[in-house]
């Protein structure tokens, strides 16, 4: 047969190494995006500081020190001390541990829940789809903050102990987080299953499970990565707001939100900015950085941009 040998149209290096292209391409484009890289670095730094920082702090035991109440930043307390004489820097990092953990865990939960329900709804359609999406719609029509406030108020009413509140807050955030996610995943599945390559799998006689797991889901991974990333930012923000109003994680467990709440009075606000600026800045920086990174990820992984 007189046949042209394998002419490569796009990339001369195609198939050079395993898994070279799609993820490799995305990573390369991501690295070229300065905002994405800075976002990623800030988040990475924040994680490192929060999880490792307190190990090197002499104040990690949080002892109350009446002799050191409300001191401004100094050489021994870089960010000053709070009303109980605890080191603010150490507190901020310890609070970060909680805030980041809650953000990550509730993201994991809501992505798992949302993706699972969205996939089931979009792939099997019919009555299952109806049920899941009606429930999602119901949750979506109620604005999530009031819903969280009510739940938080109930927690206080029922006197849930502070250490378990953290876990309950995670679950609360996941419960309000999954519907939007499920809807997005379902939409993506509905459009994917109409795509020619999915119809081609029917023509090939592949069974349902193989089509779903082997062909559909891999196309969903980019979307899930982007959603998951952006979701962490949202969850951290919601947790902070809740905790700020005393409805989320409550002291003595520190979070960025309840640290600001502790400084929520005229005197502290005007005279002791070291009490609320550090946690406030941490929330701000973390959420912005996560969103920058997430947006860049979306640009890079958006399937519509890929030919």
């Amino acid at each position, binding site marked *: 047969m007189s046949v042209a040998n394998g002419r490569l*149209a796009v990339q001369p290096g195609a198939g050079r*190494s395993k898994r070279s292209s799609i993820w490799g391409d995305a990573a390369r484009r991501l690295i070229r995006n300065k905002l994405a890289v800075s976002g990623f670095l800030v988040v990475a730094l924040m994680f490192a500081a929060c999880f490792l920082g307190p190990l090197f702090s002499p104040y990690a035991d949080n002892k109350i020190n009446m002799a050191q109440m409300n001191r401004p930043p100094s050489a021994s307390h870089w960010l000053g001390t709070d009303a109980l004489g605890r080191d603010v820097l150490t507190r901020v990092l310890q609070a970060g541990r909680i805030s980041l953990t809650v953000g990550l865990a509730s993201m994991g939960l809501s992505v798992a829940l949302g993706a699972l329900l969205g996939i089931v709804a979009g792939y099997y359609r019919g009555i299952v789809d109806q049920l899941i999406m009606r429930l999602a719609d119901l949750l979506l029509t109620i604005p999530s903050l009031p819903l969280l406030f009510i739940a938080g108020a109930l927690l206080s009413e029922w006197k849930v102990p502070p250490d378990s509140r953290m876990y309950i807050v995670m679950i609360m955030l996941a419960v309000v987080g999954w519907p939007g996610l499920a809807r997005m995943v379902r939409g993506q599945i509905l459009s994917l299953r109409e795509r*020619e390559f999915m119809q081609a799998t*029917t023509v090939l*006689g592949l069974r349902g499970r193989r089509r779903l797991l082997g062909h559909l889901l891999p196309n969903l991974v980019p979307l899930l990565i982007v959603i998951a990333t952006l979701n962490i930012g949202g969850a951290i923000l919601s947790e902070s707001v809740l905790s700020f109003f005393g409805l989320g994680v409550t002291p003595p467990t520190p979070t960025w939100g309840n640290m600001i709440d502790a400084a929520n009075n005229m005197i502290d606000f005007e005279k002791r900015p070291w009490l609320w600026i550090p946690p406030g800045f941490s929330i701000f920086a973390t959420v912005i950085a996560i969103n920058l990174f997430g947006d860049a990820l979306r640009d890079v992984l958006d399937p519509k941009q890929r030919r």
Partner: protein
Amino acid sequence: MEALLDIRELQTHFQTEAGVLRAVDGVSLRVREGETVCIVGESGCGKSMTAMSVLGLVEGPSGKVAGGEVRFGGRDLLRMSRQELRTLRGHELSMIFQEPMSSLNPVLTIGRQIAEPLREHLRLGRKEAMRRAVELIREVGISRPEQIADAYPHELSGGMLQRVMIAIAVSCKPKLLIADEPTTALDVTIQAQILDLLRGLQAKSGMALLLITHDLGVVAEMADYVIVMYAGKVVEEGEVERLFREPRHPYTQGLLRSKPVLGQVREELYSIPGQVPNPLELGAGCAFADRCEFAMDRCRRQEPPLAPVGSDQQAACWLHGKEG
């Protein structure tokens, strides 16, 4: 001997707001083992729908196979369970499409996609299927098959992708391959190579080919037998040499007007003056009447049946039909 594929009086309808659209309206055709049958006709005449009906792919709210019979290897495809049909598709009965790029999954490697039907139908293990996939890539004339197996669709050219599609389609050694305009999206030199490849594979495996095209050059080069479709019906059919030498239906004559040279693939199809009729507004008579230079009174009143005109040829036209 019974034909491998035997379609009788197939009806495929779409429910539209303006009424029932008969995309396929009483089509009968046969494909014998190892034979190449071409379906030609202008856009919208129901070529693809005929093929889709065979594979049981006309589904959804609006479209359905409303009548007729489709037998494949003696079995009635239209009455098969979904499960039975699924085990047939991609195994004994394969299909390739016009657009290879959109038929391939963008996030899976080429090798993986070729391996899928092997694992599904022949129950090969992952390793074995991959090894076979690499062989298949080589068999469809792509060099460096190991590397290509690890590549993603967007890294390959259109011609290579169509080769890959062919590799997938023939992976389980089908008895019949349905190819719906497999070369239309490709440039001319690549078209010829793809046709060569199909012929080569056919010679090796003895599979039959049902080739859909609107390019008479492709027909001349590939077909044993030709089916000419117009507005959902077969208007003429015959053995290829005869049909090219002596087209009887004015529509076929129109298609052949600027004669394709045998062995040469042309880019453009000569276009017959006038519009393809709206399938919803077909009257009682011959669907071609408005564009036909020989149209008579009778043509508008009564529909001409498909009737033999000499040996190995049939046409649906009052110019040739018996008086009635």
